[in-house]
């Protein structure tokens, strides 16, 4: 680029060409413009999530009740800790990335390589955590029933108000699960452990279980029906829902799982491509490409992308897990 520019009489005149009016190189500026457009894409998704959530404000799942798991701590209710850990992993890998950029400015090849390596490890740790989060979410914990009208009925203990898993009160033999063929996702019900009739029968026999609706009562808690109402409501049951997929999920509103898969999935894909880019640049650092060039600006550019991924996660974290 430099060679094509005449420096003669334009030097110092910012907007007449000849120097960089914004003091940023072409590559860096394009990375920034990509980030701006990608930021708008993510805001579109998050705003769509907000739209659907406002539409079903009164029946939306409460995140604290959905994401309560932590690896190796089965049976404990630990809301938020796991995502907090994921957030910390990502911020930490962002820090090693800035340190790599900083070492790059000082042309310290080995330091850049080590910091880049740490960033890649952090990125992989994050993607791995997300895979675990997804599999827990997909498997589900309690199981629920869907009515003909499409609402999800969950079961709670009449005394404590805590959620009860289907397996705790349905004592029918868990149905022989059919061999799930290649197209198992087309027939949702072949995956359920029990039939609707078994659940209804077991529910009538066990006076200790009540039905919980998705609707919030005046205290902002999910409404719990009394025995008679529960039995009546359960007559409208149509499906047994265990875990989550794109059609229905045991946590409540169908759109909740759809947006969860779509937005965290899209973000996870960004992290994954970030890791791939980081590996490419890491290799270049090791073979000395930038050392020869006497400029580590490529590290800075992938760094920008990497921080952007962190930035998006900060928002996803707020809107999916906190608000």
């Amino acid at each position, binding site marked *: 680029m430099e060679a094509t520019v005449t420096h003669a009489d334009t030097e110092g005149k910012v907007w007449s060409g000849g120097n960089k*009016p*914004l*003091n*940023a*190189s072409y590559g860096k*500026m394009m990375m*920034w*413009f990509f*980030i*701006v457009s990608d*930021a*708008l894409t993510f*805001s*579109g998704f998050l*705003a*769509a999530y*907000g*739209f*659907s*959530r*406002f*539409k*079903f*404000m*009164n029946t939306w799942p409460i995140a*604290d009740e959905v994401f309560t798991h932590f690896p190796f701590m089965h049976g404990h209710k630990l*809301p*938020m*800790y796991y995502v*907090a850990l994921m*957030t*910390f992993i990502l*911020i*930490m890998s*962002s*820090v090693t*990335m*800035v*340190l790599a*950029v*900083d070492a790059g*400015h000082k042309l310290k090849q080995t330091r850049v390589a080590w910091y880049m390596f740490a960033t890649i490890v952090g990125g992989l740790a994050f993607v791995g955590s997300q895979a675990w989060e997804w599999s827990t979410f997909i498997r589900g914990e309690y199981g629920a029933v869907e009515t003909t009208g499409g609402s999800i009925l969950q079961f709670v203990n009449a005394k404590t108000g805590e959620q009860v898993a289907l397996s705790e009160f349905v004592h029918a033999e868990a149905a022989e699960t059919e061999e799930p063929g290649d197209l198992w996702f087309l027939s949702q019900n072949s995956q359920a452990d029990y039939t609707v009739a078994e659940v209804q029968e077991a529910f009538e026999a066990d006076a200790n279980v009540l039905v919980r609706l998705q609707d919030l009562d005046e205290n*902002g808690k999910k409404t719990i029906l009394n025995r008679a109402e529960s039995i009546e409501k359960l007559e409208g049951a149509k499906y047994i829902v265990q875990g989550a997929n794109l059609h229905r999920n045991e946590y409540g509103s169908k759109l909740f799982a759809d947006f969860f898969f779509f937005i965290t999935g899209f973000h996870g894909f960004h992290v994954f491509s970030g890791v791939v880019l980081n590996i490419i640049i890491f290799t270049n650092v090791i073979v000395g490409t930038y050392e020869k060039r006497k400029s580590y*600006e490529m590290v800075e550019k992938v*760094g*920008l992308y990497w*921080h*952007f991924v*962190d*930035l998006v996660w*900060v*928002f996803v*974290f*707020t809107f999916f*897990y*906190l*608000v």
Partner: protein
Amino acid sequence: MGHDTHKLEIFRGTVKFKSNVQKIWGVLIFLSIVTTVEVVLGIYKPDFLMSSKVFGMRLLNWIFIILTIVKAYYIAWDFMHLRDEKPSFKYSLVIPLVILIPYLAFILLTEGDYIFEVYQNGFIKWDF
């Protein structure tokens, strides 16, 4: 590139770091504190923050959103070193986002709330 001219002050000059590396660690500590505050508030959900509403939204949710924007600011300004860029460059990137995102959010959330009202109170169930 002017890379030796890092601006080393944060919080409007109240905290000044000796080197860029120190600033990075300082920002990390700040971001970790903010995240911890968010997680603690998210787990305990204090009653008075849940019950008081500002512009139709719980005070707690406003706190979360403001803390998120604070975090986003420090990530963009210090990790993505926007602080060191020329103001013209910095604002040509940030201002479109600051205008368009709240605009989109406002429109979609208003519409979502309208549909909620129709479901809740409307006589017409589907035709709207």
